[in-house]
């Protein structure tokens, strides 16, 4: 049996310890070299950002937890390919967007899930902190998938239509149409 502690090969650090690129922090470098404690630190640092993104893109608290896990598992697997061209947070952010958007079988996957303890969609409790915010969050969550994704990426995350089109595999004009629809539905829902 192989040593279960062995990580994926840290490409950036093959051979002797490489000098980290300027934006690869020490924590990222250690995590890429297989240090789980360092990776846990990264998780603690970025979990909120990733979870918020997944929650809004998925519009579902339980799925957002699944996605957040997937994002970090994938990040661990791919840390070797992180070369520091962008900040780690941006890299992780993009990874999160891809994880959520590429999952076209959310329903089946939720049922397949075999992870340990799940909570009962407790996210709303945390989202309840500010009631007004909750209303908007709830309304966003209730949007149709494509409209929600475009709204979250464009109006909350600041992506452009061209980029969103690329991520969702739709034309730029379609992205605009989804945005228009999302904004209209949200106004109606919040009125």
């Amino acid at each position: 049996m192989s040593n279960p502690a062995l990580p994926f090969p840290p490409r950036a650090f093959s051979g002797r310890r490489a000098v980290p690129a300027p934006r690869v922090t020490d924590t990222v470098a250690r995590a890429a070299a297989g240090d789980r404690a360092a990776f846990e630190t990264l998780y603690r640092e970025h979990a909120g950002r990733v979870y918020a993104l997944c929650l809004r893109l998925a519009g579902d608290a339980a799925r957002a937890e699944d996605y957040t896990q997937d994002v970090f598992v994938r990040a661990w697997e791919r840390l070797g390919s992180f070369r520091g061209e962008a900040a780690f947070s941006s890299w992780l952010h993009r990874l999160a967007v891809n994880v959520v958007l590429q999952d076209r079988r959310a329903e089946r996957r939720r049922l397949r899930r075999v992870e340990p303890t799940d909570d009962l969609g407790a996210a709303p409790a945390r989202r309840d902190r500010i009631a007004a915010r909750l209303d908007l969050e709830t309304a966003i969550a209730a949007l149709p998938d494509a409209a929600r994704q475009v709204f979250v990426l464009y109006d909350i995350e600041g992506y452009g239509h061209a980029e969103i089109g690329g991520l969702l595999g739709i034309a730029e004009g379609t992205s605009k149409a989804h945005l228009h629809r999302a904004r209209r539905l949200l106004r109606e829902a919040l009125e």
Partner: protein
Amino acid sequence: MLRIALITVSCLLVGHALPAAGQQRVERRLAVGERTPIRVHNLTGSTTVRGWAHDSVVLTGALPAGATLYFGGGAAGVKGGVELADPADTVPAHLELRVPRGARVWIKSASGDITVEGVAGGLDVYTVSGRVSVRGAAAELTAESMDGAVTVEAGRWARVKTASGAIAVTGGEDVGVATVTGTVTYAADAFRRARVESVSGDLTFRGALPRGSRLELESHGGQVTVEVPAALSAEVAITTFQGEVRNAFGSQALRSLPDQRGRALEFTAGAGGADLIVRTFKGDVRILRAGAKASR
């Protein structure tokens, strides 16, 4: 908050205001789509919603003196609500709605009971002290009450919560139930994943664990009872700190975990293939064979 929302909503709704003159019957109709989202606010009275095979919403009801009904929308969405003349008014308004079966329905109340039948799309119901009853499984269901009893037939996905209200859930595939002090009864034999938790309320599961399923029951101080057929086939893991365990499946003893980590009982019943996990702090745990008489 509710009232503010209601007033805001009321300002913008397309609808007809009723004159304030005694208890009045109301009736409204709207053509909608088969999956139109429908939102209903009825703070103090009962709300009954029934799914039907028409693409229209029909609202009938009785309002107390001075109350105003707002109701409007179309295929993109329907909103309705009762605004009371005096916010402190507790005379109930009774609303009954017929909605397309595939609609997504959202109902909010404070003290009113909520009854839903045959809505298959999606259902979100919230009440504070009212009771909730749902029959005919909605694909996705969220039901919350503070201290009213909640009885639901779960569809594919269901989440039910109370503070002290008793909960009874049947069926479902992916089910989550949580209460603080209320009791929970969950009956199912075709679920895939279920988690039932309380702080002090007693939890009971009745039914079977299908192959590949996972059932978690967790309570700090409530008694956990699992009543399953003698042919149970599952990996069972029970952990408790101060509770007692009674197990009708085998004679394995509860063993103490090192470092004061409580006591555990783990065994495979039948061929395994499903997971039954029970965790309590001081609640007793009983794993019973269905049909056998419980001695306590």
